[in-house]
């Protein structure tokens, strides 16, 4: 078991290194160099050369990469090319919105979707199950901004509650005030992950439900409710945790679209600005943060999948 987890962690570490290589050298093929961009067109060649030396740009690529990686791990993300401000300062102003929306979505969206999915598995083929399956099949293939537009149509245009933009500061707001503040972004992301979670948790429970020991329990005359909660659910926990982690990893992507749609400042809008202004120091730093979060969640999904399965934990 520990050996397996250590091996997964090792694979995770290698993945992170590979990711950092892709991000670093992916942004290195960009034309122009950081020193020239920061000093502007009028800078004398001597000044540019001096700054190049200070930033370490005169060193070979692999040395630059190692320095960048070391700086990243010590929390030094470099200085933005577009605004001449340390990246860490830019992030400090914005990370809260992104983190709050992702966490609240996880807190609200995940339990509700799991409940709906498990209920659908309790009554397979019922009207409730079929309607839910149809809705989730439809939503799973729709883009985030379609879901967001439907929500705006319903709440802002039809019911006249709230705004299609998230405005104002989150300072000093309590838990419920924060939910109200980010109601539409949270609802949008919840719908997006719900469509996956409902389908997959339903499939996970139904999968267990078709195994022989459940058939045995049914033949013994155990009540349906008890079969689901005492027999099936415990064995479905592994796949369900796996699915939850995968969908939280997906939030990394979803949150970018939602922040732009509802026009509030966050890390995702920051990286989009970075791409538009070709600020590759910013892209490297933020790209690493997003990818790291993603890789860590995938790793959790992976470990959860076999940690909950005794047969994988104790290989013969």
């Amino acid at each position, binding site marked *: 078991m520990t050996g397996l987890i250590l091996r997964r962690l090792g694979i995770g570490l290698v993945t992170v290194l590979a990711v950092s290589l892709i991000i670093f050298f992916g942004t290195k093929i960009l034309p122009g160099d950081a020193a020239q961009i920061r000093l502007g067109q009028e800078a004398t060649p001597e000044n540019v050369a001096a700054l190049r030396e200070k930033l370490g740009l005169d060193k070979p690529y692999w040395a630059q990469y190692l320095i960048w990686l070391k700086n990243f791990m010590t929390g030094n993300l470099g200085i933005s090319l577009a605004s001449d401000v340390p990246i860490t300062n830019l992030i400090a102003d914005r990370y809260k919105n992104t983190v709050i929306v992702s966490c609240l979505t996880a807190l609200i969206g995940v339990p509700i979707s799991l409940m709906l999915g498990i209920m659908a598995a309790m009554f397979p083929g019922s009207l409730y199950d079929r309607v839910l399956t149809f809705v989730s099949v439809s939503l799973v*293939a729709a883009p985030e901004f*379609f879901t967001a537009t439907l929500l705006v149509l319903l709440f802002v245009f039809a019911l006249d509650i709230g705004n299609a933009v998230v405005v104002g500061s989150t300072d000093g707001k309590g838990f419920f005030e924060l939910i109200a503040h980010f109601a539409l972004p949270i609802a949008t992301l919840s719908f997006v992950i719900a469509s996956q979670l409902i389908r997959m948790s339903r499939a996970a429970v139904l999968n267990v439900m078709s195994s022989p020991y459940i058939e045995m329990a049914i033949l013994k005359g155990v009540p349906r409710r008890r079969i689901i909660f005492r027999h099936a659910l415990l064995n479905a926990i592994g796949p369900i945790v796996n699915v939850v982690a995968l969908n939280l990893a997906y939030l990394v*992507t979803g949150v970018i679209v939602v922040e732009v749609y509802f026009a509030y400042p966050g890390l995702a809008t920051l990286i989009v600005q970075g791409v538009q202004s070709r600020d*590759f120091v910013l892209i490297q730093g933020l790209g690493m943060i997003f990818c790291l979060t*993603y890789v860590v969640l995938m790793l959790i999904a992976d470990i959860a999948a076999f940690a909950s399965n005794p047969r994988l934990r104790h290989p013969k």
Partner: protein
Amino acid sequence: MSRDNTIDVPLGAHPDRLGGLSEGDKTDHFVAPFEHGISFDELPDAPPKARFRFSLTGWIGAIIVAFWLFIAVFGSFIAPYGENDLPFPDDYSEFQTPRAGALLGTDVEDRDILSRIIYGAGRTIGISFAATLLAYVLGVVLGIGAAVSGPKVDMAMSRINDAFLSLPTIMLGLVVVAAIGSSIPVLICTAGLIYATVVFRLARALGQEIMVMDFVEAAKARGEGRWWIITREIWPNAAMPLITDFGLRLIYVILFISSLSFLGLGVQPPQADWGSMVRENLGALQYGESIIPVLAPAMAIATLTVAINLVVDDVSAQAGGRLSKRL
């Protein structure tokens, strides 16, 4: 595995129960057609003909997909205005409501929304289709190549592929667009390369599964060349799941391209594309003026992707639903 990498599980039945033996398959002996004039299909224990029937939802999906394909191909002939024409050149108010002459109203720059959606159809569908095709050519060639190569080549290719797979697709897209800017060929190549990683994994898994089957062993023992084995033994068996997966991949590519365009990093103005139309007209929502300029293009994407999904669901359910088990 991100949302992009999942394979749809046809729900409603346990995968094991789908794709089970049908009545005709149950005989374990084969009666050769000794008499002339009787074909294999007419024998009492012949396997049932592979006849394909859409369910109701499959039909609805197929009709919507056909509708959008028609618009994509013949759009420039039916659009009431050009992509960047102004239906009411003298009227300067933004986001006019639907009226005669502009059935869906006009957008932030007074252009006809209906015409832009019709022009956008060709661009959105064309780019996505080209990208998916590229992903398939690369993914299938490399994936099946890895499956038939030795373990070392296979290992190296798979590890590199895994590194790319473990990145969120949109991040890869952002890095590429930041590095070389955005144009339609760049979009097609980027999406094609990103989704080739997923196809690679599927094609390799399928190839490996088929490689160890008896008929491949037999072909090897006969001394057939590698190319012969790929085209005659592996490909016919891998084709069906790959074609079903093509539909799914197309959905994710459409969503990917639309999201990039929505972020302002995909198709560039003034060219119409559904994703960028949503972004251009977001102001209509934010000032509470009208929802149609945003709803219409978002709806166009959603109807197309949901319709493809309905067709794919139907096809994979009829193909035995074994697709999900192969991953």
